[in-house]
């Protein structure tokens, strides 16, 4: 241990460490357009299914798959071009948060669609997914902020 390092210097070094790590974690964002894109693709896909037309279903499925893959690849590759935060910063709580988010969207969409179908409403899948899509657009940025908070809490130099 260096005898000449003063506590205030050590504190400054810890602050620098925390700020540099925060700089990396703040880059790990899912842009707002991503949630809109996925939500739009989900609704479009459901509308194609609800149309019961083969051609519409084929086109809707293709657009959905290509769209989701393209949007996801763009977000992932865009982030990796600069840097990729350590995977273990997310931890089990982060993984649970992501799974919980997906489960919540499904838990809202599916019962809504089935309830609408039972009530004889037209386009029940589209309307059910629309509700889930709105939830996704509204709560997606919140999920991003939550994941950043989880990573910030796990970075080196955090209070132990």
């Amino acid at each position: 241990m260096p005898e000449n390092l003063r506590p205030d210097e050590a504190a400054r070094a810890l602050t620098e460490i925390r700020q540099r790590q925060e700089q990396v974690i703040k880059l790990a964002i899912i842009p707002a357009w991503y949630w809109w894109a996925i939500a739009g693709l989900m609704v479009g896909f459901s509308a194609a299914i609800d149309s019961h037309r083969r051609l519409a279903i084929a086109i809707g499925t293709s657009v959905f798959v290509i769209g989701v893959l393209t949007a996801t690849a763009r977000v992932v590759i865009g982030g990796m071009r600069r840097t990729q935060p350590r995977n273990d910063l997310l931890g089990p709580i982060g993984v649970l948060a992501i799974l919980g988010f997906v489960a919540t969207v499904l838990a809202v969409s599916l019962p809504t669609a089935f309830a609408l179908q039972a009530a004889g409403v037209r386009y029940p899948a589209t309307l059910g997914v629309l509700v889930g899509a709105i939830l996704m657009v509204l709560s997606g940025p919140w999920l991003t902020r939550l994941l950043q908070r989880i990573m910030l809490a796990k970075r080196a130099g955090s209070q132990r």
Partner: protein
Amino acid sequence: MIEPRFDELIHAPTRLSIVSLLAATEWADFKFIRDSVGLSDSALSKQLTTLEDAGYVEIRKSFIGKRPRTSARLNSVGRAAFERHVAALQEIVARAGASVRPQ
């Protein structure tokens, strides 16, 4: 429990910034590190070589299309040294009591 150990090599201001960035990443692009820390290409190369020679950092050179790309990562030895260094800093601050706290 991490054994605190002050690391002179890591503590040098520029290297502390570089290692702190790398500690939060899987891999970091050379340009990202350069721009984040505010170094010239040659200055960053020199610091990364020092860290590589110490066995703390792994450098990867690849091509994206025809463009060369250099990335760096903190390996397990570097990560352990960094964790011990952080623990040493925290110990120094803790010994001083509540009067000195990181921001």
